[in-house]
Every structure is written in C-alpha cells, then in structure tokens.
C-alpha cells in the first residue's frame, strides 16, 4: 500500500529517497532515533550541562534520595547519581559503538571476500561460520576478561570479535547476488580490478544492509557489556557503565531504589530506541520484508 502511494506521488524518486521517506513515516523509528540521539547527546555533553564530578564523594550526604541539588539522588559514597549515570552512559555507548565498528570491519570483509571468491573458498568460509555459531562465545569473552583483566579496550574488541557472524553471513549473501548483476560484470569486462569493484560497486550497494545490521548490533554489544559489568567482569572503577551501576543498585535497592531505577531506565530506553530504529531501517530499506 505504501509503495503504491510512493509511485503515484513521486514517481521519479530514487530508491534511497523512497526508503528515507518510508523511514520518516515510521513513527516508532523516528521516536527511537530521536530518543537515542537525545540520550547520547546528554551523555557526551553531560559534563557541560551538569558540571558535577561523578567521582566526587560527599560521605555526609550518602544515599540521599532525589532532590534539587542531586536530581537522581546519591550513591553509597555520596556521589551524584546524575553525573554517574551520564558517565556510565558514555562508557556504554562508547563500548556499543566501538564494538559494533570492530564487528562491522571483520564481518563485512569476511562476508565480501567469501561471496566474491565463491566456490570452495566460500563453502569453507561459510562452514567455519556454522561451526563458530555453535561455540559458546559469551563464555569466551568472560574467560578473556578473567585472564587478561578488565581493560576498557579489551571489552569492545572481545565483544566485537564475537558479534560479526551474522553480519558476515548477510554481506556474503548480498555480495553473491550483486556479483551476478550486469553492472558489476560490465565493470569487470571494462578492466576494473577487484579492489575498484569493491570500492565502487560492492560497498555502496551494501551500505544500506550494513547500516541496518550495524544498528541492530549496537544494542547487542551494549547488552553484552552490561551483562559482563553486572557480573563484575566488565569495566573497572573509576570507570563505570550502566551495567555496573545496575549491579550496585541491585545490592542497595531496599535502602535506595533510585540507584537501581535510573540506570535501568536509561539502559532500557536506549535498547528500546535502538530496536525501533533498527526495525524501522530494515522495513524502510527492504520493503518486501516490511510488507509481510
């Protein structure tokens, strides 16, 4: 139905512009995008808007409930919770984005290479992915944290290194399909080398798919980081993340429920927004799927 309307009102729009239009009409996706942008902006610019030191302890004022001077209350050491939640959000978003970037690079190159080579290389590389799917990767990430200590860079590298499988599979499928298209063949006949085809034809045509799955990977990565931090295997003090704050809040929820509620709320709203945005992007860029 939406497609008919597109064709009647704007017959000359490019597929990309049509997708953009479909995305903007999806209220949930727009709300999700706006919400996540607001939260991210608050976390990264929070230091300017709310200039309290998240590490400053005020023991006389420990576990005080939300008030004007501390809108989200204070924790067991009298630290301002608003500043802590903003700081934790910075770490959570940073891990989410960096981890996604790591998984993106591995997944896209693995998938493109596999699809482009085809034949036995492809069969072997996809078999490896099948095997990798059966490995308990979360346990390996936990093991890595135990063995090498809880370093910030290790967290997103380790998470990114285990989250690329689906991306590789999807990119490989798209590459296989693109390879058969006449414009790629023409480019090859005209003497373009493999690298040029990658850059000129494959990457631009894969960009939409990559954007969808990157958006859907960010919440997965953030979830895994929060899970690790909740168990005490994630980021280390003085850094904090939403998972780490939820862990502390769960211990003290009887005396100070705000320690649990605010970080949980921030984290759940972020997941909600990212999921809405990811679903909306998928429906917008792949209308056949959306129509089902």
């Amino acid at each position, binding site marked *: 139905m939406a497609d008919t309307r597109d064709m009647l009102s704007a017959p000359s729009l490019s597929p990309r512009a049509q997708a953009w239009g479909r995305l903007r009409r999806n209220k949930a996706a727009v709300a999700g995008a706006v919400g996540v942008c607001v939260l991210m902006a608050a976390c990264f610019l929070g230091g300017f808007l709310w200039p309290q030191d998240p590490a400053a302890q005020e023991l006389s004022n420990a576990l005080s409930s939300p008030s004007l001077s501390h809108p989200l209350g204070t924790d067991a050491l009298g630290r301002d919770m608003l500043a802590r939640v903003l700081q934790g959000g910075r770490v959570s978003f940073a891990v989410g984005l960096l981890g996604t970037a790591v998984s993106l690079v591995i997944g896209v190159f693995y998938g493109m290479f596999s699809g482009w080579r085809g034949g036995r290389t492809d069969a072997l590389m996809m078999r490896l992915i099948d*095997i990798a799917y*059966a*490995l*308990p990767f*979360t*346990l*390996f990430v*936990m*093991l*890595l944290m*135990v*063995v*090498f200590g809880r370093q910030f860079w290790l967290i997103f590298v380790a998470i990114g290194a285990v989250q690329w499988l689906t991306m590789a599979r999807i990119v490989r499928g798209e590459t296989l399909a693109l390879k058969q298209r006449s414009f790629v063949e023409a480019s090859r006949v005209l003497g373009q080398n493999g690298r040029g085809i990658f850059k000129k034809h494959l990457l631009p045509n894969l960009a939409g798919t990559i954007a969808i799955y990157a958006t859907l990977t960010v919440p997965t990565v953030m*979830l895994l980081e*929060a*899970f690790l931090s*909740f*168990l*005490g*295997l994630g980021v280390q003090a003085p850094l904090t993340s939403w*998972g780490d704050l*939820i*862990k502390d*809040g*769960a211990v003290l*929820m*009887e005396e100070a*429920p705000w320690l*649990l509620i605010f970080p*949980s709320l921030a*984290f*759940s*709203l972020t*997941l*909600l927004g990212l*999921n*809405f945005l990811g679903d909306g992007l998928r429906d917008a860029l792949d209308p056949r799927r959306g129509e*089902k």
Partner: protein
Amino acid sequence: MARLIFRRLLEAIPILWIVATLAFLLARAAPGGPFDRESPLPPEVKAAVEAHYGLDKPLIEQYGAFLKNLATANLGPSYKYPGWSVQELIADKFPVSLELGLWALVVALIVGLGAGLLAASRPNSPRDHGAMGLAVVGICLPTFVLAPLLLWVFAIKLGWFNAMGYASGADIVLPALTLGLYFGAFIARLTRGSMLEVRNQDFMRTARAKGAGFSRAYLLHATRNALGSVVSYLGPTVAGLLTGSFVVETVFQIPGLGRFFVSAALDRDYPMVLGTVVFYAALILLCNLLADLALAWLNPRLRKNG
C-alpha cells in the same frame, strides 16, 4: 533420522575439541598463576602445590594430559575446593540450574507462543499491537534489569515471595519468570512473523476449502508449519538461558552451576572454569541436536535429506 543423529554427534567432536583447546590456551596464557595470592605463598610451598597439579610440566604435556582426561570425562581437581573434582562439582550444582532452566523454558514457550498466536490471529488489530508492544518492552528488559526489578516489587514491596534462597517450591517463581519472559518476548515476535507468512499459503486455502473452520486451520495446519522457526530458535535460546542463569542465580542467590561458574571465574579457579565451559559447549550442542530432531519431526521434508 539415525544418519542425522550420527552426523551431528560426529561433528560435535571437533567442535568440542576447538572449545577445549581455546579455553585451555586462554587459561594458560593468563599472567599470574592461580596460586598467586595477595599474601604470597612461600616459594617452596608454591612449587610443591604447582607440582601437585602438574603445572610445572611443559605446556604441551599439560595439554596432552588435559585432553586425555577430558576424553574420559575427568575434568580434574578444583583449585578452590580441594578434595572436589570438577565433574563432581558440576554434577552437584547442575541439577538446580537444569530445573530453573526447564521452568524458564516453559514460561518462555507459554508466553511466547500464546502472545504470538494471539497477535497473528488478527494482524494490526488492537490485540496484535498490544501483544507486540509488550514483546518489545520484554526485549528491552534483559535479565539483569528484570531480576532486581521483580525482586524489588514482588519480594520486598509486596512480600509475596522470599527475596533470597532456594528452599521451597515458590522460590522458583521469580527466577523462572525473569529468565523466561525475556526469551518469551523473542519467541512471540518470531511466532507472529512466521504465522503471518504461513497463513497466506496454498495449503491454508486448501484446508479452508475442504471445510476446516478458522480455528482448526489456524491452530492445526498453520501452527505446525510456523513452529519450525521457533524450534530453530531453541538452540540459541538454550545458550541464552545458560548465560541468563549466571545473572539470575547471582541475584536470587540460587546455588546452581551458573552462580558457581561466575564465582569460579572471579576466583580464577581455572580447572573449574575450563571444565564448565566444555560442559556448557556440550550442552549447547546437545540442545541443537534435539532442536534439529524436533524440526525433522515437524517437517517430513527434512527427514529425507537429513
């Protein structure tokens, strides 16, 4: 069918070997041994302890011994609990986790299938939007958010359940709900999607044309075909239940293997961690096999090609 089982079991061996080797190498790559404490042991005591556990031998010899023991399901002694072997500890703790996991699976299937079927029975109706809205909320409440929240509301504020411990039957309710609802939300979305796909297919029209009423066609013919995607999702669900059990058992203080694994990891009890990782990997493979068998049972076309 027998071929499928045989092939899967044969495939499981190299996968388990990869898991065991990776885990072994990781544990041995650790800077600082398991007996480095804050107050250091006298060097001769430490040497004697390490010799007792074979840690003074070359790496390749340790690896050989590890694999040999693994093949006979001997996972070695625990460092943290002297006198206990790892397999004894797993046998002691796992039944609790299994019970919790099964109840969580029951919750996930009832909630997921129920909400999914309800939503798909009338797409884009208020009931569809309501069920799917709830499912989205469920997906945004991972176990480590939901567990403390349920505990706070139902145990502390309302006092309906015990906040801690695992003694009476009612103590399983909150943990099983925490674990189950999250996966129920995923299953609900999956069920709805595949039901909508199936409902327009030819055999549905045939069933209706031959006189099957809406509910018969819907529940019997469509559901059986739509269940496939849910069953394929059970493998990842089990893996997720395992990691979820780490959180739930920690929050609700349940003496299961999940909580034990986390504390073993924090204590650097490497044989325990290694053994549990291999055990979990085997468990996931077994559940994938069971899911494949269920899939073959649901879809006769898969049985032939195995």
